[in-house]
């Protein structure tokens, strides 16, 4: 019951954010990202938002030009992960205000900080947006 990775990829298949909760070498990451992006991006909208790939189940959701992909292991509730993705997006949206691809690119570390608050050890620990954004906003104030 764990999340193995979270990926943000634009529709050209370029990685915009990658967080792995298990160690993979750069080559492995590259290969994996290539394969799953090819798989997910080719699927029409009306099909399932879930794709099985090797031992991963990938749950993905598209927002304009960005795809959010979450790789999980076997016993995970796919619908819940699908909503978790939306929760991540809503959180980013609250922080950046109408978030877009460039926001994440210019503030890659902030996007990571939010994800760090929400997922630890592959588990969803926090979905309360106040709790997630508080420390980040505090830090913004002090620096």
């Amino acid at each position: 019951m764990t999340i193995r990775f979270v990926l943000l990829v634009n529709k050209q298949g370029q990685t915009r954010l990658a967080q792995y909760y298990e160690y993979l070498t750069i080559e492995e990451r590259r290969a994996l990202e290539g394969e799953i992006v090819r798989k997910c991006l080719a699927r029409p909208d009306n099909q399932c938002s879930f794709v099985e790939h090797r031992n991963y189940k990938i749950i993905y959701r598209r927002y304009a030009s960005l795809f959010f992909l979450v790789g999980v292991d076997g016993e995970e509730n796919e619908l819940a992960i699908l909503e978790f993705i939306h929760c991540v997006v809503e959180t980013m949206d609250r922080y950046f205000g109408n978030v877009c691809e460039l926001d994440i690119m210019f503030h890659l570390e902030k996007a990571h900080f939010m994800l760090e608050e929400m997922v630890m050890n592959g588990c969803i620990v926090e979905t309360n947006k106040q709790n997630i954004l508080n420390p980040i906003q505090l830090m913004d104030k002090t620096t």
Partner: protein
Amino acid sequence: MGSQGSSKDFLDLVKAIGEAKSKAEEERIVLAEIELLKKRIMEPDVPRKKMKEYIIRLVYVEMLGHDASFGYIYAVKMTHDDNLLCKKSGYLATTLFLNEDHDLIILIVNTIQKDLKSDNYLVVSAALTAVCKLINEETIPAVLPQVIDLLGHPKEHVRKKAVMALHRFYQRSPSSVSHLLTKFRQILCDKDPSVMSAALCALFDLVSSDVKAFKNLTASFVSILKQVAEHRLPKAYDYHRTPAPFVQIKILKILALLGAGDRHTSENMYSVLLEVLKRCEPGKGEPATNISNAILYECICTITAIVASPKLLGMAAEITSRFLKSDNHNYKYMGIDALGRVIQINPDFAEQHQLAVIDCLEDQDDTLKRKTLDLLYKMTKSTNVEVIVDHMISYMRTLSDAHNKTEIASRIVELAERFAPSNQWFIQTMNQVFELAGDLVPAKVAHDLMRLLAKGAGEDDEEADSLLRSSAVESYLQLLGEPKLPSILLQVVCWVLGEFGTAGGTHSADDIIGKLCDVAEAHPGDTVVKGYAITAITKICAFEIAAGRQVQLLPECRSFMDDLLASHSTDLQQRAYELQVFLGLGPDIVQKVLHVNGSGEEIEIDTDLPFLQEFVDSSLANGARPYVHENERFEMSSGMSSFVSTSRTQQEPSHALRFEAYETPTVHTPSASSSAPPSLLPDFQEKKPESPRSLRNQLAADNSQVDLLGPEITRLRLDGVQKKWGRPSAPSQPPPVTTSNFDQEIERSGNGGSGVSERASSNRESTPAVHVYTEKKKAQPEIPAEKQRLAASLFGGSSGKRDANGVKGSKPAPNRPAAGNSKEKIPSTAQAPAPAPLMDLMDMGGGDLFSAPVAKASYDPFKELEGLLDGPSTAASTSTPAAPQKSSSIDFMSLYDSTPVVSHNTVPSTNDHDFLSLGLTSSSGIEPMNRPEAGLLDLNEFPANSPLAGLAGLEQSSSSSSTSLPERKGPSLQDSLQKDATTRQVGVTPTGANPALFQDLFG
């Protein structure tokens, strides 16, 4: 949010990456960036802010797939920084770059220790975040005491992270925190919900490893879940007005673990589960949200895992139905999964959803299809194995990647071995698997297949045996015309041709030898196939010599043998020499050594080698040293070395060379054990223990087997198939079967005879509609005709199935006309047992036989296989041109010309194409800009309460289904066809079992 505070450099880089139109361009930018960073980052006195930027740029470099290890040390250094943002960025980069066993970790432990003591809680939590990713088993003790102290930190944010750090330690090394189990229980009662929810993560792992120890927490979990469901948590924890859904799901998962197989514990959960279910049901007029459906699904998982009350099970079933009936593919997927869980408890439940399942199976959506195949795999039994395996095979045809293929091939093999209704079917299925998955199939499968052919029906029914074999020979000869067969299939082919090629008398030895030479020639690099080929040639020659005929090797064969005589592979050389020896021997010797059809025979091997006794005695008399047993020798050589190691070697002497001969095969099936398992492989060497060269051959055989098959198969494994088949897999099967049951099966299938099949086929022609009708158990006359056809294809699709079930479910055997026409072409059997039994894919009860609506008078699996390989030209006789794609639904295909099924094969390729073209457009710059600025999320488009549309249909369908329920009982097939036609005109494919649904929607 602007990009203030970043330097122009950084902005330019991000812009450039964002605007890169192709991977190649992106690559160029990153490579240039690496060069730049390498220079800049080493400059002395880089300002801290600048450095932070460099670190982020390094993160970009790695994220885009390039090595940034030159900068790791700077990220580690950055963690020392006093500035919080810099420190946190340093930690972030370090966690992204390093795995926990990296050498630099040791440098960071000190910093972490210091930061854990910081007054600034943000620093502490940053350090704890890093702890979760960077601390490995060895460094846990260095930070553990501090982390434990932090469990009492006044800030909930810190407590939460400390819990997660402990959770991490537990994942890394359970023993490191084993003394803290009570702590986790305490934290569960933390006044802050987010700390409590973090504790749930850890408790889930703890509970799954030891359920008993946490049974007494059930009441706490139940009460927490109750409070959450009742909306006691602050509003900030809501997600789309659902109270803390992720916490609910986590608790439901834990409850599933606690309640499994424990009625008492389960009973304590009933009321809270009902409460959660009730609160997740959408109110009147509003669609269910994704998140409440996620909770509902989790409830189903929990209900089916625990010992649930009928009421809860009923609700779970109802929700499952709703998912299945939804138009939304995500819900269908969840529904299929839930169905798989529900039918574990209530098998009958599947029946009412068979059409929905067929829908999913035939869907274009690959994920859905696979999920459905998973479901079918779980519910396979002897009565539906053929349909399911057919579907798996046709799905396998569409696959390209090895991982999936291996997985599905192993499933097919498993199902075939467990439930195979007949030998023909098994052989045919295996051939298809070999053909499609080739060398991804483990060698054992091939050996089992060969063994089956060799063993055949045993002594009882030689004729059925030889028919089976000759049909195998024929099909393999055809198969050899194909280019590019996988090695493993060629091995089987060579073996079969060598063993039985000339047995039927239809093929001359020269023909077969010629074919074998061709095979060997076509695969110069494959020594295993060559070995099989030369051995097969040897066997054929031996059979010829034994029959008293003169053997004149063909020139090509002669040169092949000469080649091998000089081969670098000693195995091949040995085999070639043996062939040479055979050619020089007289018929009487050869007959003794290698006689026709000897592969199925028992080989008595006396491990004492008594015939050498005389030689040994005389040697000893002449002063030779006495033989010392291997184990004793080992003991002596290892001198004083420990007792333990000796005992170990006694258990597994495989480390050393084995010098003793084969032990007698150990498998003893209860009866028929007299015909001990044959060893199939390099068989002829084994078969001549009485020949003068026998000792040497024993050793050679040993070696060559190892050589050929890899270490794990030094002996054929004989335990697999037979036992599995012997096990009764459905009530309708004959009582526990023994090894000899194949004979009986074949005999029966022979006896079952064509009389019946004629009846069946004529039956079918006259009244097809009736068949469609009867094929459904508890017929549902209203279901759309298209669906009925699909169901028919599933249930009546393969005639082999019917034989099989006639054969397998042999209880009604007396009903069958026992015509003694076993001499007929073997597989031409299709039986319609008298009380026209109904078959049902979904029926887990399994008592039923199949009716035989679509039987072919003469059905030969091998012919079908030929059709598969030969393409339309040969297949035309048996089916439409589409049939080669889908061998098993031939009947179906010819009956109903066009079906949606065929298109599956094309899906992946078009998808690939799409992707390629997408790549092309982007690289050729047709798209002006990647437009990263385009709004990622317009919240106006996401009304907070309806994250996904498309649920509207769900509610309607459930309500309409209830109203139409009585209708289903009426036998108005006509009506349903009519309705279906109308819906079809509207352009909709019905998904439910109820056409009235569409009237509601469109009327």
